[in-house]
């Protein structure tokens, strides 16, 4: 078994589910012969046919609405939105229909669909190809929002997302599509949703992140280790519904927490985690929960995008800041 990238793991998961369940269909723009602009669906149309891997007209509202209609009739549509910046025409269908169908029909009609989309900055892409707007979706009751940060978790979480009986927004961090390779056995074993993953255990500070920023976060954890500071690192993975228990458990041990995300700061998902910690961990916190985030600006065009993204240096400085506090009893 050779090691594969995150985007190859996505492809492997899609192929696995297409082979396993004939109700799974892929819908998207340029996903067929072309294999998707990031190659996430490369070879799938040749293998499973154009009836299962469908190049659609160029219309994102349509992708959202078709997915809803198909899902209610027992299919498992997996919709690719080419870039997250183009998901907004489908918002009406995600927010007003996919997320609500089960509730408004008291379980009579359901919407087991997945909307996958590459997201995030750092790939020198044109305008509108770099934003991280996950918290627009984490705010919506009825949705799941899932973000993998490694090939292994991309495979296991995407299997779980496709098999989930409710709609899932599956955000693929494009900056790390090909950053690392891992051996990912194609064994069909899904990873649990609604669960945070502790990537590294530690005792002095908890670092919480997701998606591409996991990599800078892990680098900082390594630096800290070299400096004799023990950081626990948590990959949130499912942002909604949030597994706050794992984060609380960690913070009750470390007493300190830094949340790192590349999305803009205001109403970013870090605020939710910080607020939960403020309510439920105030008695164990030794320092304020700090956030390292993208700025409240438009993501700059690519010459400046790396300055927009939280850097290892910014993360380290913030961790150092929470480490200097001592709890005043």
């Amino acid at each position, binding site marked *: 078994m050779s090691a594969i990238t995150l985007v190859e793991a996505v492809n492997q998961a899609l192929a696995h589910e297409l082979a396993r369940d004939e109700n799974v*269909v892929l819908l998207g723009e340029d996903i067929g012969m072309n294999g998707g602009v990031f190659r996430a669906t490369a070879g799938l149309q040749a293998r499973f046919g154009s*009836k299962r891997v469908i190049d*659609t*007209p160029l*219309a994102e*509202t*349509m992708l*959202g*609405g*078709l*997915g*809803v*209609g*198909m*899902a*209610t*009739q*027992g*299919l498992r*549509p997996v919709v690719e939105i080419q870039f997250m910046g183009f998901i907004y*025409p489908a918002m*009406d*269908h995600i927010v*007003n*229909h996919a997320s609500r169908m*089960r*509730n*408004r*029909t*008291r*379980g*009579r*009609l*359901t919407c087991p669909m997945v909307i996958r989309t590459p997201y995030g900055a750092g790939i020198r892409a044109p305008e509108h190809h770099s934003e991280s707007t996950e918290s627009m979706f984490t705010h919506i*009751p*009825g949705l799941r929002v899932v973000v993998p940060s490694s090939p292994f978790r991309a495979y296991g979480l995407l299997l779980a997302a496709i098999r989930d*009986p*409710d709609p899932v927004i599956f955000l693929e961090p494009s900056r790390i599509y090909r950053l690392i390779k891992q051996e990912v056995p194609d064994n069909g074993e899904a990873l649990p949703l*609604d669960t945070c993953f502790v990537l590294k255990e530690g005792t002095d500070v908890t670092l919480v992140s997701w998606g591409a920023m996991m990599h800078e976060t892990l680098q900082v954890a390594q630096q800290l280790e070299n400096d004799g500071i023990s950081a626990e690192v948590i990959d949130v993975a499912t942002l*909604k*519904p*949030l*597994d*706050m*228990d794992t984060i609380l458990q960690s913070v009750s041990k470390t007493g300190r927490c830094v949340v790192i995300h590349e999305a803009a700061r205001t109403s970013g998902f870090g605020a939710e985690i910080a607020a939960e910690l403020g309510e439920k961990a105030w008695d164990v916190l030794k320092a304020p929960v700090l956030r390292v985030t993208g700025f409240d600006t438009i993501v700059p065009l690519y010459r400046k995008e790396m300055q927009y993204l939280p850097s290892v240096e910014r993360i380290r400085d913030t961790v150092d800041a929470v480490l200097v506090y001592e709890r005043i009893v």
Partner: protein
Amino acid sequence: MTDNNAVVAQFEIRYHQFLTKEGVLVQPLPEPLDNNPTLWKEMYYHLVRNRMFDEKAIKLQRTGQMSTYPSTEGQEAIAVGVGMAMHREDVLVPYYRECGAHLVRGVKMDEMFMYWGGDERGSLYEQIPNDFPYCVPIATQCLHAAGVAAAFKYKQEKRAAVSFIGDGGTSKGDFYEAMNVAGVWHLPVVFLINNNQWAISVPISQQTACKTLAQKGIAAGLSAEQVDGDDIFAVYHATHLALDRARQGKGAHVIEAITYRMGDHTTADDASRYRDNEAVQKHRDECPILRLRKFMESQNVWNAADESALIEKIAADIEAAVTRYQQLTPCPVTDMFDYLYETLPDALQEQRDEVIAYFGDRS
């Protein structure tokens, strides 16, 4: 030799009518309508029930027993005609006005009252579990119908989807995107435009420069036609043919049914603010119910005794539905959590407990 100024596309939209407002046939009725008093009476029953249901719903709203309700007065032939032309295994994807179609397909009157009366169980549709519930966001339902039709095609089932849309809705992108994909994928779906001339306060003249709304389908490669929406024979026949073609894999179709919105947009609206009552009165004698009754009387298959017996029966059925609605056991407040996901996520447990602490776990 090439013609550098050739006409490369042409289209026409036909208008179909069988029954005039006087109840007179202007062309012979096709099968299965021809010489079929049983079918005419069934249509008449559904039309009258739709009208009487509507009147009762408005009364319930006016007396504070139900919330906002959209009247269908004067537009019953569209809902009933379509509902009756559909097969049971087809799927209806409505917007929010065509209660007559739901009722024809077996949705219970008390379910309809429950929906507009603020109870989600009104969308349970126990009798017709694949039909979509009401759809409030304009035109979005057209794409759901296309998706349903795509699923039928994928599973090679001989079924079709029907989506209603209003005249205002045809200005929205969802409508075009739905017709476009239905055209290019030859989906078994029929888009039924209820052109009642008004989108709340905006008249059709301010909605589009198109001469017909049907022709919007031509742009997507669909066949399209206009019918007299107050003539149930025309609505039924056009829908019946379109659904047959759709189920046979011959593609999607657009029907624009011309009618007039007699009532306010909803009970929350006051149409006197923006339209002249004289224009409304002018349309009173177009009434789809009256014209079918005149026709049946002229055929000697309906009389005053039939009429009063019918009204008596329907009134009793409606009263029984109202009683069931009024005696409804409230659903548990925790239902707002329990149908959000298939399994309640741990993250929601605390909030669910909180609602129980304040309101109990019953109602």
